[in-house]
């Protein structure tokens, strides 16, 4: 599952999270974000969740007021990508408890940390919700605690 990018944006097209798994120049990023938001927001309800864009496959899904949208290599599996999005939503939900857009706005850094545990370099690193939640909670337990005294 090679993902090139993952974007979270609101119904109004406000970007809430952006993760780039391949090097993209800043200007190009802005263009992609613009293209994705206009394309995805312009879709009629009950359309399919897949699009072709340049040589990428775009897979998106709407959860409440938030769109989750990712770009994949042309040979990738769209259905599996949909479930990657879903698993990420589940992880956010488990962490925040009934996650909503505001949680992601105010705790954006957490959303990034959770994503790093799940996907790395655009590939799925771990799929077990238990294992993932455990490691996310474990790092939360470390908050503000000096883990090991360093020699310096």
């Amino acid at each position, binding site marked *: 599952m090679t993902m090139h990018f993952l974007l979270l944006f609101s119904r109004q097209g406000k970007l809430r999270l952006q993760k780039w798994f391949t090097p993209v120049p800043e200007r190009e990023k802005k263009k992609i974000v613009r293209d994705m938001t206009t394309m995805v927001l312009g879709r*009629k309800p009950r359309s399919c969740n897949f699009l072709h864009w340049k*040589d990428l496959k775009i897979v998106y899904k709407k959860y409440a007021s938030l769109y989750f949208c990712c770009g994949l290599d042309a040979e990738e599996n769209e*259905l599996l990508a949909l479930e990657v999005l879903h698993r990420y939503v589940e992880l956010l939900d488990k962490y925040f408890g009934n996650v909503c857009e505001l949680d992601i706005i105010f705790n954006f850094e957490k959303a990034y940390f959770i994503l790093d545990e799940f996907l790395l*370099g655009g590939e799925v690193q771990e*799929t*077990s919700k238990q294992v993932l939640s455990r490691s996310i909670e474990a790092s939360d337990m470390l908050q503000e605690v000096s883990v090991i*005294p360093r020699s310096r």
Partner: protein
Amino acid sequence: MPAVSKGDGMRGLAVFISDIRNCKSKEAEIKRINKELANIRSKFKGDKALDGYSKKKYVCKLLFIFLLGHDIDFGHMEAVNLLSSNKYTEKQIGYLFISVLVNSNSELIRLINNAIKNDLSSRNPTFMCLALHCIANVGSREMAEAFAGEIPRILVAGDTMDSVKQSAALCLLRLYKASPDLVLMGEWTSRVVHLLNDQHMGVVTAAISLITCLSSKNPDEFKTCVSLAVSRLSRIVSSASTDLQDYTYYFVPAPWLSCKLLRLLQCYPPPEDGAVKGRLVECLETILNKAQEPPKSKKVQHSNAKNAILFEAISLIIHYDSEPNLLVRACNQLGQFLQHRETNLRYLALESMCTLASSEFSHEAVKTHIETVINALKTERDVSVRQRAADLLYAMCDRSNAKQIVAEMLSYLETADYSIREEMVLKVAILAEKYAVDYSWYVDTILNLIRIAGDYVSEEVWYRVIQIVINRDDVQGYAAKTVFEALQAPACHENMVKVGGYILGEFGNLIAGDPRSSPLVQFNLLHSKFHLCSVPTRALLLSAYIKFINLFPETKATIQEVLRSDSQIRNSDVELQQRAVEYLKLSSIASTDVLATVLEEMPPFPERESSILAKLKKKKGPGAVSVELEDGKERGELNGGGDRGGDAAIAASNASTPSPSADLLGLRSAAPVSGATPSAGSLLVDVFSEAGPAATSAGVNDDGFLRFVCKNNGVLFENQLLQIGIKSEYRQNLGRMYLFYGNKTSVQFVSFNTTVSYEIKSRILNVQTKTVEPLVEGGAQVQQVINIECLTDFIDAPLLNIKFRYGGALQNISLKLPVTINKFFQPTEMAAADFFQRWKQLSQPQQEAQKIFKASHGMDTEVLKAKLLGLGTALLENVDPNPENYVCAGVIQTKAQQVGCLLRLEPNAQAQMYRLTLRSSKDTVSQRVCDLLAEQF
């Protein structure tokens, strides 16, 4: 459990975020941000040292501002400081900032790398993971240089925690993708492959991504992964949904891992080991069977995960393309999905079937779904689904259903979305030509196309219909009648006027007998459109008028009057004015004979498709074959499998068709331009001094491959889209070939992919290829290097397969790479006595190969010498008693052995014949060199 409250609340950050959210306007937001930036800057610059918490808070604010889309030019140093904090949360924010905002400030990278190094060696798994995540997120070359050596060690070390292994595997993958030259697996290869056997499913899931990528680049080194992958897959597929505990996703056992395993197997041909293959086929059958079982859950996640595996299995079946039974089952399964209530499944089924349609085993099975697909085109609410339906109709089209499909596509065009009309028009045009049995149908189709979607009909399409009409006298009368009728419409598209003007100008006489379409009626009809047309169309019409004067002397007075009018002869457009003046003058001073000669009917365009069609009809049934339309926009599959050499020949002969940009009217050049387009010649001409003549002869030769027997550089292939230049050098038994792929269009090629294949079993040549970038911009040229090692003597050349998408359509080109045994010649100089002594030593009948053949080119001495030198042998002077004859000597260097080779060529200028004799210590070599060389004279 709102975990957010867990002691890390950065109140200042939350306040800032709500402030921003409360801003009523963009200006207010910018003002608030600038205020905050000033505040942070002063804190960072202040004399008072900031504590870790404040630093973290400010860095986090900067990050937030950056993610809002504002530039951040400071704070990097503070973030780097956070990396070496021993508080987890500070370190974490530091890493996040670096991951999002890294720039190639080398000073900073050194500091970052230092912090990463410390964390990697900390043996604290949480810190190690953070460091690995950062490397994977940044993935820069500097980081690869610093850590590519260390990470494989972490990955395979026995005492590494599972979570660290997972991060290490994907981190390494990222570095490998960015800087493959820096990641050397070498000694680690087999231990990495064996991660497929790891107890921990998460480790396998992460590691397999790395293994798949490495396998696709170095299949041989990783081939042991095939059997491991099959047994792992088999264990998952046969497990109950509860066996895998939390790796079961909505009652589906390990969907991610299953898909990744199936994807890994797609890097390889079907397993050779019968037992492994049997097990794999069993897995694939089980997956297909499960699709028929009732769902274990109503949740969409369940069916998505299950079907994700199913589609991946179908991809593998299509990749193998060798199990007719599985292919047909796959096709039936997709057929069910075509009518599924889930839009996603219908979309994917249409998409997958497109690839199935090109397999000879399943093409017929796909065709049975034609009604469903047509229905999808008509009724799907979602344009992207309709698009896939149109693609599939195009892919499943063959002679048996072309009329139906073209008719459906035409009727769909009337209501089609604007975004896909142009593509649809091209598809219809290609199919109509490809499968035209009678050309009146073809003409009708194209005229309908112009009528329905004139704006989307590109020049290439209407040029093409004119070329075909010019070349086929059986359709000219029909075409004239049809355009005449089409032009009766009060509003007709300008493209229709162009086609009408051209065709009536050439063939109006064929319908002039009917008083309803008498010459004057025809002229008046055309001229009634004149004033509504653009300049180029008017220019075309003026030419049609002068042709009318020649065809129908009775129209002369009327037309001269039109030409003489101020609006023509004083037209502000230079081209129109010039045509008017010249045509007027021509018509008044030239005698009828001169006029008839100058305005003679256009000569036929250089024909190619008739010969190709004949060849294709002989070779293959419909469907698997295709004729190309040189519309420059869109091409179908070039090779439908089968005889590759023949395909190359088709491709080569395509190059000789007239350029679509050639002036159809022939006003500037008397005859249609033949040969390659001017741009085509110039694309590579600066690279190869000898490419000039080669480019034009590209289409003439029967087989592009044979042109390279005696030379190493030139243009290997050319069509309207792509030019492939070649430059090669050989030394001993090694060769290096540079291929230059030139995109001749202005549109980028995507998913550009080339593969070189060779009979692997025979192991005669060792061919290594570096992959090329998947994107080739319009007008750009990309280079590919192929290394070749000759292991023993050989006959078959490697095949080069090029695939790319151009405007959505898959292009597929197969060519023989011009690697021939003579490339490995080392010239050997020897005196006459030596030569004859060796000649006699090689006197056994099987050591000699001889051919007597007619000269197919001139017998010029210098050309012959150049060819013999190009063959790679030494040309020995003063050896043969007859000075007309040529003798050569050389040694073929293969890894296995060296084969000495002597050659004698005896031209007979009077009879225009040659006798060619080859002697070598190996019979196959004598024969092969003789065969190759005999084609060269």
